[in-house]
């Protein structure tokens, strides 16, 4: 099986890796059979890059995202996030890593219905124990960034799908994470709204955010710099799309 490394496509110097996977396996036991959801994956992700992960169902892309999101630990191999090996971390330490370094964007937005937009956005800051006044200030500036300054007092259910996803993005940005993880961010949106969300992600990427996105739609994957295709628990191919016209129009900063 061919091993691919993202490093050959990487940008910046080799030291500036946010994520590094070395021979990562994830094995589940199904009945009396072991299933390898990930089978020895090697991958390096440079700071500031924009990745799209795709693949058929059962290819391991969900497992990959859960692992990258520190919601799961590898059965075998090394996963370094910001240089820290997560193999031997406790549940609390995993929580802290997510709180400090990661921001999640989901297909179904996953906002907490009883909280206002403002409260949803500052939730990570609440868990970080940041002073409420400071948190609210930061929440307001982030809301302005994603174009939601007018909606802070509303409940998520009072917003359109696109607006809800903007709230989710604002929440993912609140803790100023190293990596944004997006799971089918446009899956529940119509094409026009989906495009506007993708433009927002591209904009965030232009501002230097590292983004890893799982999608099965080629048009959406086309927004990323690198398209990674998974198959049978491993990387089948990685395509550099930096010169792709669709992407090139939007991405200016990355060289």
């Amino acid at each position, binding site marked *: 099986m061919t091993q691919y490394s993202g490093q050959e496509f990487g940008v910046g110097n080799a030291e500036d890796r946010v994520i590094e996977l070395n021979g990562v396996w994830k094995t589940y036991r199904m009945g009396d059979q072991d299933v390898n959801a990930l089978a020895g994956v090697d991958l390096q992700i440079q700071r500031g890059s924009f990745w799209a992960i795709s693949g058929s169902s059962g290819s391991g892309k969900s497992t990959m995202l*859960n692992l990258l*999101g520190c*919601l*799961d630990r590898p059965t075998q191999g090394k996963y370094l996030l910001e240089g820290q090996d997560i193999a031997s971390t406790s*549940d*609390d330490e995993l*929580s*802290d*890593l*997510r*709180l*400090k370094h*990661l921001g*999640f964007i*989901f297909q179904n937005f*996953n*906002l*907490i*219905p*009883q*909280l206002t937009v403002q409260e949803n956005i500052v*939730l*990570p800051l*609440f*868990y*970080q*124990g940041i*002073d*409420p006044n400071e948190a609210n200030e930061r929440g307001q500036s982030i809301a302005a960034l994603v174009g939601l300054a007018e909606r802070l007092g509303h409940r998520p259910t009072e917003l359109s799908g696109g607006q809800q996803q903007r709230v989710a993005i604002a*929440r993912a940005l609140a*803790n100023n994470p190293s990596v944004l993880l997006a799971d089918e961010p446009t899956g529940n949106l119509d094409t026009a709204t989906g495009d506007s969300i993708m433009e927002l992600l591209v904009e965030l990427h232009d501002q230097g955010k590292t983004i890893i996105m799982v999608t099965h739609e080629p048009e959406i994957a086309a927004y990323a710099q690198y398209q990674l295709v998974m198959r049978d628990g491993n990387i089948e191919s990685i395509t550099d799309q930096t010169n792709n016209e669709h992407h090139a129009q939007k991405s200016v900063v990355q060289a």
Partner: protein
Amino acid sequence: MIGSRFSRNITLGVKTLLLHKMRSVLTMLGMVFGVGAVIAMLAVGEGASKQALDEIKRLGSQNIIINSQKPIEQAASGSQRIRMNIYGLLYDDLERIQQSFDTVVRTVPAKLIRGEGRVGSRTLELRLVGTTPEWFELVEREILAGRVMLDRDMEQSSNIVVLTEHGARKLLAGKSILNAQVRINQGIYKVVGIIKSEATDSGTMQTPDQQIDAYIPLNVAKERFGDITVTRGSGSNTREMVELHQMIVEVDSTKNVESTAAGIERVLSLFHPKKDYRMSVPLALLRQAESTQRTFNIVLGSIAGISLLIGGIGIMNIMLASVTERTREIGIRRAIGARRKQIIGQFLIETVVLSVTGGLIGIGIGLLIPWLITVFAGMPTVVTLWSVMISVVISIGVGVIFGMYPAMRAANLDPIVALRHE
């Protein structure tokens, strides 16, 4: 900062509970009625027991009261013509008791004679109490005017009388009270003082004093009335000879009361083969009342425990449903970076807010019910501070104990599974 985070957690908990107002209220009902019933029942029990204890304490917890009593076989043959019933306590018993026990501080004898008081045209049925000045030390009552009996009244065999408030009002209404002359049966007595009577008509215990008492020196009573009383019946006269009708013995401390009472019983039984006296020990009654109260409290405590258990289970049930319903929310919070402990804290606070709110409403009801009982049924009730404080503590405890399991279940959910939950 921890404080502000805690208060935000509470605000969030309250907000979440307000989303399902009906459900939250129904969940709290168990606590509301549990706590309300406990406080109300304790208040009624406390009121009843306070009333009983007050009555018993009025008798004096260091006292032993011995009354003369017609023996049963004599009482049966008492209808015979010209027959003298001789029974009861003797002047000698007084000496014997006084001298046989170191623990006896004093003994107070009393002759009780029916009489009629008269001032001008006013009359009143009285119970003449021929006694010694010690009576007023044992049966302590507030002096409303003048003085009580003194040693010199005994020495000089003075014809003086101490009346109760009731007697004074009936006989001397509108007249100058002290030094008034009162005719009782054939004698004339000078009123030297008025005392308050705490005798009550209702209640289980009879106090040594009565509303219609008139106190005169014992030797005066002996001289004027002798030891024989004649009761005119229909066609026959009953004559009785009783030296002393009542004796009150004061013991030096409450811990010696019961042993002294047993000793007196032994001494008296030697000289009174026919049991012509009756002993009552207020302390024993007090002990009995206290043990009844304890039993009552245990029963109440069990009822309280069961109702709070049911209330707690109700809360736990709803919280488990809430955890299932909010599985996704838990997944989201965990993905964002909440630790398990923070999830536990969130759900625990919600349960405690529920149980404490229910408890506080219950306290309100528990205060209202005894008030209604007192106003409309006239029963005495006492709401004790400790029952309210214990209710608050128990409410918090129920929240923590019954909230812990649902909270742990929430915290132990796998975030990946929880996020996928529909």
